[in-house]
């Protein structure tokens, strides 16, 4: 291992590799930031262009896009309440309120620092523990995936705002939307109303654009003045201080580990890890009441959670040849295109290349920090752009992005309708986040529930007799009980005060 690492380090250290990393990062950040453009689209489009490059240079460029794309989603999430990626929705919960309070730069800085630290931790774990972690993830079967999805859905309790019942409805709605289209297990059409364009269901990115971006535009249709006093980027309180960093270090490391753990599980994804990290940070915070209203801790947790996935996603990919998500599947294709066949033998036969890629991921995160710091001042200026000018720009990106998913105008109608639904829900004091959680976790939950039922021949005991599954069941119940107890405790002083009156 040490010899391969040393050889890999030697292969990594070249100007062409560093340039390709930076090009990849910049492209990835742009794709991640723009709603409708996804990291997947970015990697798909640029993979053929890397054909002429060396395997290390090519993979580093694509990984740069992946890392940059995961981070890029937070920029628009913070500045204009429009997450570029599903994973950035958790960042948006507190990043946008911070931006409204004139602390856009602080939120962006924290998002960058948390992303970089998480990326480095994830890359280091990849480097030193990939084969061991891969063995553990092989123990994940349908029952484990189902219970993990239910655990993720239990977070709805924490992000529903004041009404868990409304959160449940929204979550159920998101889950229901994810069932529209052809059922994977039985190939039966579900709620397509005979429309062939709904065969593939409603894609997550379409839901993201409709429920978040367009609904925000409808809500702001009467707001056409920005209070510039709140957007002074040179104000002291808009800067990230050493105290902020120090007080959030444990939070960031914990969230990074959550992200790494979740990222190592094929199919789990950055969306789950960012919300899990957010929820965990809220439970441990001294000021949980600030979450959802502009807490820098929340931004740190969400971003560390989602970027912690970047290195960990490569664990099952490189060691077992199992892609964790669609983007990883494209990366798998890229690896094979460059003559690298993932699996146990890869580390022995082409160890120097594999270690160069893994070490390169650490360097990628360092360059992410440098690029991010340089570009942040330009990103933060978006907050100064008059809202009336931003609306048509955001609209065009949303429409073009929505069209590009399936090359059909039908998706544009879908995002308009989803926007209206989200608008009405927000007027009725529902949170949109449970809808997103339902859409992201619904397919994972249903597919694996049905598979588990087939394996166990209809017995629910499968969820409590397998150790990892039982662990997540206990964790879910613990989370829900803790939440209910904390809610009751929070209501008691109010009831006592009202009783005294």
């Amino acid at each position, binding site marked *: 291992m040490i010899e391969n690492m040393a050889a890999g380090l030697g292969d990594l250290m070249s100007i062409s590799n560093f340039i390709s990393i930076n090009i990849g990062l910049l492209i990835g950040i742009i794709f991640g930031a723009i709603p409708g453009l996804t990291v997947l689209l970015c990697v798909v489009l640029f993979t053929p262009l890397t054909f002429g490059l060396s395997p290390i240079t090519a993979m580093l460029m694509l990984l740069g896009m992946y890392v940059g794309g995961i981070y890029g989603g937070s920029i628009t999430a913070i500045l204009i309440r429009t997450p570029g990626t599903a994973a950035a929705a958790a960042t948006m919960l507190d990043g946008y309120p911070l931006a409204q309070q004139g602390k856009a730069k602080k939120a962006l800085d924290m998002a960058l620092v948390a992303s970089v630290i998480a990326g480095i931790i994830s890359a280091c774990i990849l480097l030193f523990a990939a084969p061991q972690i891969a063995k553990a993830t092989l123990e994940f079967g349908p029952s484990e995936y189902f219970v993990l999805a239910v655990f993720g859905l239990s977070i709805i309790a924490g992000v529903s705002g004041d009404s868990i019942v409304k959160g*449940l409805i929204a979550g159920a709605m998101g889950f229901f939307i994810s069932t529209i289209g052809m059922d994977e297990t039985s190939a039966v059409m579900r709620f397509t109303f005979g429309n062939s364009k709904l065969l593939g269901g409603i894609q997550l990115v379409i839901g993201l654009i409709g429920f978040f971006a*367009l609904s925000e535009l409808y809500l702001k*249709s009467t707001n056409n003045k920005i209070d510039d006093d709140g957007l002074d980027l040179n104000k002291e309180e808009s800067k990230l201080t050493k105290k902020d960093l120090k007080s959030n270090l444990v939070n960031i490391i914990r969230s990074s580990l959550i992200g790494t753990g979740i990222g190592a599980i094929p199919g789990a994804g950055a969306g789950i890890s960012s919300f899990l990290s957010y929820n965990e940070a809220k439970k441990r915070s001294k000021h949980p009441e600030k979450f959802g209203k502009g807490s820098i801790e929340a931004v740190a947790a969400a971003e560390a959670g989602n970027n912690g996935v970047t290195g960990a996603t490569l664990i099952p990919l490189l060691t077992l040849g199992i892609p964790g998500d669609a983007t990883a599947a494209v990366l798998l294709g890229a690896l094979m295109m460059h003559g690298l066949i993932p699996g146990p033998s890869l580390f022995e036969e082409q160890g120097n290349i594999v270690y160069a890629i893994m070490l390169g991921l650490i360097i990628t995160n360092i360059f992410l920090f440098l690029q991010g710091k340089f570009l942040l001042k330009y990103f933060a200026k978006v907050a100064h752009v008059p809202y009336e000018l931003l609306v048509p720009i955001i609209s*065009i990106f949303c429409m073009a992005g929505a069209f590009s998913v399936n090359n059909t105008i039908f998706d544009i109608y879908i995002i308009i309708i989803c926007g209206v639904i989200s608008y009405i829900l927000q007027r009725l004091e529902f949170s949109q986040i449970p809808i997103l959680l339902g859409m992201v976790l619904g397919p994972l939950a249903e597919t694996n529930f049905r598979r588990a039922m087939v394996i166990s021949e*209809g017995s629910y005991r499968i969820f409590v007799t397998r150790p990892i599954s039982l662990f997540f069941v206990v964790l879910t119940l613990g989370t829900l009980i803790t939440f209910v107890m904390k809610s009751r405790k929070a209501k008691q002083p109010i009831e006592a005060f009202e009783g005294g009156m």
Partner: protein
Amino acid sequence: MKRIMNTNFVSGIIFLIVSIGVLVLLPAQIDTMENGPITAQTIPGLLAKVVLVCSIYLIGQGIFDKKNKPIIITSHNIKRELRSTLMVAIYAAYAVLIPLTGFLIASLLLAIGLLAFYKIKIWYYYAIACSIVLLVYFVFEKLLFVKFPGL
């Protein structure tokens, strides 16, 4: 009546209707030949039932919870909703226009229409917005190979 017209009651009614509608449509919309306990209908049906129960709870909360704030309809609120409706109409008109005029022209009209919606009279806002439309069109069509509808 004024007191129970609050967000809990209204959302409870809406979702009660939606969940009943889903349960009524379920057998026709998910026509499965599966005969086990878990079928393609199971999860959607379960979700509709969860929403049904939650909406009944919300209706009850809307009627009996004294902390509910009533929905107050004022001319300001009506104006706000009308503006939002107009914005939705602009986007809907844009979607209808795309197959008729092509993506580029429809998008230029959308950008101009949205700026007019905000009563913008500064000429360079229009210039910037139209330039961004052209840039997006170029990047998506020529660099990302997305085939937009033409004229």
